[in-house]
């Protein structure tokens, strides 16, 4: 397979993007179902198990039901922004999956070798952070354009929470960047291979991992940080006025954000597609990658079933007064240890 030929490269890219998109959509459907079943088991009940065998077709039934609902648009002057907000939310959510490696380089019999990724470039981590930053607009604009006090409050609180925890998210990743010396996610995963799993970054950055996980849960507006969209507090927060397809776009954007954040955690801290036996059977790498993502999704659902939610001022206090100094402390510690190791080696 001649990678330098522009046309073959473009066709392969389009096929790869389609496969990745369909995989993510199926994973979202599986997460929706898994959340309802697992949450039900935690709460001592069964959850939906009628549609299809064990409830497997439930997300598709939900999808069809939501599509058939009436599409309401408030009759006022900010209609354009009302229609634009869910588009921004879903586009920035999906844009983030482009940089992750799904597996090592595989060799197919007639077609040559493929690295299992869509794009590899020098500033992949910054790209992910940038896309997350733009995702705040979907929520802020949705809250404002609904012309509804509860939506406005929910939207402003949610975007204030997201921009506060974005800082802690970015800073907690700097420890990993210091260790690997590169912003390229593909190379960070490659540097974690070998040594039977002893080179995974979680062993060298335990504080960074915990800080990242907390910041990521706050970033995706999940329990215990989901006050802006809690039903008992603010009706439904910023997406109160949305119905049918636009609501579905917000709903899917939240789950895709969960999946991308889990992907970032696996590639940066848990070694991505690394695992026993990947050198002989490269396709096992894909299996390990998805297994680790499913572990993080289970962790999200487990937290939802177990913890109560923070009040908004507790949330902001925690983000600014605890997480941010802890992330800076992590950077200082990592830099000091690396400097000392380098100095001792001379």
């Amino acid at each position, binding site marked *: 397979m001649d990678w330098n030929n522009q046309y073959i490269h473009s066709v392969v890219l389009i096929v790869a993007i389609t496969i990745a998109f369909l995989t993510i959509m199926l994973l979202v459907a599986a997460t929706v179902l898994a959340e309802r079943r697992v949450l039900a088991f935690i709460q001592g009940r069964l959850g939906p198990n009628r549609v299809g065998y064990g409830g497997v077709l439930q997300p598709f039934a939900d999808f069809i039901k939501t599509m058939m609902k009436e599409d309401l648009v408030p009759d006022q002057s900010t209609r354009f922004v009302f229609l634009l907000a869910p588009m921004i939310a879903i586009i920035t959510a999906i844009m983030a999956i482009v940089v992750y490696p799904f597996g090592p380089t595989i060799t197919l019999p007639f077609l040559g070798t493929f690295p299992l990724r869509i794009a590899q470039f020098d500033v992949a981590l910054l790209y992910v952070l*940038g896309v997350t*930053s733009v995702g705040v*607009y979907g929520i802020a604009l949705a809250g404002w354009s609904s012309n509804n006090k509860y939506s406005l409050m929910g939207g402003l609180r949610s*975007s204030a929470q997201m921009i506060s925890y974005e800082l802690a998210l970015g800073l907690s990743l700097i420890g990993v960047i210091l260790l690997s010396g590169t912003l390229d996610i593909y190379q960070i995963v490659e540097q974690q291979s070998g040594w039977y799993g002893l080179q995974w970054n979680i062993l060298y950055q335990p504080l960074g991992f915990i800080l990242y996980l907390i910041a990521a849960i706050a970033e995706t507006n999940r329990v215990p940080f989901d006050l802006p969209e809690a039903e008992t507090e603010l009706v439904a927060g910023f997406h109160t006025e949305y119905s049918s397809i636009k609501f579905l776009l917000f709903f899917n954007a939240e789950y895709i954000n969960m999946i991308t954040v889990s992907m970032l955690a696996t590639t940066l801290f848990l070694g991505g597609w690394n695992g026993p036996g990947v050198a002989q059977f490269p396709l096992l790498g894909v299996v390990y990658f998805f297994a680790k993502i499913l572990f993080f999704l289970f962790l999200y659902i487990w937290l939802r079933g177990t913890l109560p939610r923070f009040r908004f001022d507790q949330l902001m206090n925690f983000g600014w007064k605890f997480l941010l100094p802890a992330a800076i402390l992590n950077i200082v510690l990592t830099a000091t240890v690396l400097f000392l190791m380098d100095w001792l080696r001379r």
Partner: protein
Amino acid sequence: MTTLLFIIFAGLAIGSAIAMVSQSNPLYSAISLIGVFISLASIYVTLAAPFIAAVQVIVYAGAIMVLVIFVIMLLNVEHSAPRRRRLKFLLPMSIGMAGILLAETAFILYSVQTAENRLPGNISNVGLTHSIGEGLFTSYLLPFEVTSILLLMAIVGAMSLARRTTILSSTARVVPGAQVLAMDIVNPRAVGDMRPVETETTHEAAHLLGVDFQSDRNQED
């Protein structure tokens, strides 16, 4: 291929800029400006400057414009009132001056023909993070440190400007009689302090809160 990409993104940038200037609703102007920033970031990528493109999206589109949109929502600005008569000469004059500015630029571009004008391909490593880090921390360390002090000054300045000095509006009045207030309300600098402050008369309460005191004699007539 690069030419086609440049034309697409340049068209987007110019279109969003014109939309920004011509909109009367400031929120739509802000959204168009975000469009300009993202198209400029795409142009930076085609110019082999990926780090600057990512920083542009994170800083400009992701932080500065969020701040501007928060301020627009906070101040709840409406459409501007119709233009007053005496300022009508500004629009044609500004378009005339813009034409002069463009003519000057075109003259400069025409007379500078000796510049190296072939993009040396995508294999340059000028824009990679490595070279930017090297430049920033070796030859340009002083501007870097000065910039960090500038940011500290901006943080302190913005906080002291936007802090509320009073909690009550200028039209607030005190309920007549003796009252018990929380320290939180009396002193705007003691946020979260819930100790009670007792006042015996209306006059004392009004004095504590800094509110105008209207005596009952004015309202009886």
